[in-house]
């Protein structure tokens, strides 16, 4: 039984057809990476799975319609446009997103320890680096022990070192917490290293499969335009970011 099942998904926003006839399944335990050029509909697909926008077609997430499985689904959005001058600590953030019964330092620390951010509890959000901030958001997404974690370009704006730490934590969590992960990423080395399935989205589903099968000159050319090349990480070339 797939954890996510999508059939003939169509999304139209303000007369623009953003997604057309998408169909795919995601099984439990998979790490699915969504790739595609800017404006191709990746974030729209994510928001559809989260139940944030209207759609046509059949979408099942964790045995129910999108948006219904509250608590069983964690979400890390694209870079959050947050006013860094607001006097908000990491503890504050966790306290108003968690249930009252779980509003205690022990629970907050447990969530943050999962992402190596246990020492950030008293820090102001505005004082955190982008890498620390994203780890806190991931800790927040994990606070109800979700089965499915959806991340939309979680490492955007994070420096290279922070990015490596972030994905290592994600990889560890995937195993330890038995998570299914859906991840939007422009970094093909990340996709190559961590994905068990790649979905190439450019308004429609252009390709789908294992990274080794999908990250080829042909499919990347089809997705990003001809001339796009990916040198995979085992070779002595730097990874190309598309």
């Amino acid at each position, binding site marked *: 039984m797939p954890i996510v099942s999508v059939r003939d998904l169509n999304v139209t926003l303000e007369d623009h057809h953003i997604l057309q006839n998408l169909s795919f399944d995601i099984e439990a335990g998979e790490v699915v990476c969504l790739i595609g050029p800017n404006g191709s509909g990746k974030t729209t697909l994510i*928001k559809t799975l*989260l*139940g*944030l926008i209207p759609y046509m077609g059949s979408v099942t997430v964790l045995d129910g319609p999108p*948006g219904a499985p*509250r*608590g069983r*689904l964690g*979400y890390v*959005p694209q870079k*959050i446009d*947050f*006013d860094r*001058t*607001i*006097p*908000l*600590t990491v*503890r*504050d*953030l966790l306290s*108003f*997103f968690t249930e009252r019964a779980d509003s205690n330092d022990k629970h907050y620390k447990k969530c943050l320890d999962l992402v190596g951010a246990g020492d950030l509890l008293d820090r*102001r959000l505005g004082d955190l680096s982008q890498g620390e901030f994203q780890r806190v958001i991931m800790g*927040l997404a994990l606070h109800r022990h979700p089965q499915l974690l959806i991340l939309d370009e979680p490492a955007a704006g994070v420096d290279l070192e922070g990015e490596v730490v972030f994905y290592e934590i994600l990889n560890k969590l995937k195993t330890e917490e038995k998570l299914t992960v859906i991840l939007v990423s422009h970094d093909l080395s990340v996709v190559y290293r961590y994905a068990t399935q790649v979905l190439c989205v450019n308004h429609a589903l252009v390709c789908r499969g294992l990274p080794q099968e999908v990250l080829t000159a042909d499919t990347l050319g089809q997705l990003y335009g001809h001339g796009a090349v990916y040198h995979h990480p085992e070779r002595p070339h730097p990874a190309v970011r598309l």
Partner: protein
Amino acid sequence: MFLDLLVSPLAHPFFLRALTAGLLLAIAASFIGVFVVLRKMSFFGDAVGHFAFTGIALGFLLGFDPILAAVVFSILIAIGVGYLEDRTTLSLDTTIGIFFSGAAALGIFLIGLLRGYRADLFQYLFGDILAITQQDIIVAALLVVVTLTTMALAWRPLLQITFNKDLARVNGVKVDFWEYAFLVLLALVTAASIKTVGILLVTALLIVPAAAAKQAAKNIRQLLVFTIIISLLSVVFGLFGSYYWNTASGPAIILVSLLFFVLSLLW
């Protein structure tokens, strides 16, 4: 000597009424003000003051209680702004700008239709402690009860919405419901505060204490506590100042809160 200065205004029932109503409104306004500042809704708060002005003019013209008319009119227009923002491509500040100027124009037009000179209209523009009645105190007390009850339920959802609407929705928050509930509460508090601080300065009562508190607060709880303290002190010092210098209460209260804001910059 100091004690005399403190006690002698309190001997006047009108001053006691103003102080009681002012302190109650300060508490309600603090809860709303925190979110007005955090959600960058100052312009909206200002506009609601103008909606209330039109409501008051309508009240006079149609023979209703002006404050009741202000409350109803402000709520309807505030919801209208929220609705249009959701359903058009116009930005929020453009939508507010349209309603803001429209309400002001309609209010002035309606006043023009009133026969004769209406001195009582000025008390609504600048605030007048002499005008505060026993009924206003009851309204302010009810408003505090409504605000505290709503905030007990809305505090966490509104903070989630302030942080990120999508995360709030995924967490099960009914974003639209709480946003409209906040608009209604904002309109209520604004309209109810008009007699004390006046239409022209009602937004300042919402914004200035919260802005001053934001400079000094280290976390969200401190932000709320500091806002309440600054609001209460502004009302107390402002009303005493208004009594001794024989000026309108609104400007006196806001000037004191501005003093706190300047002090917060030096924190």
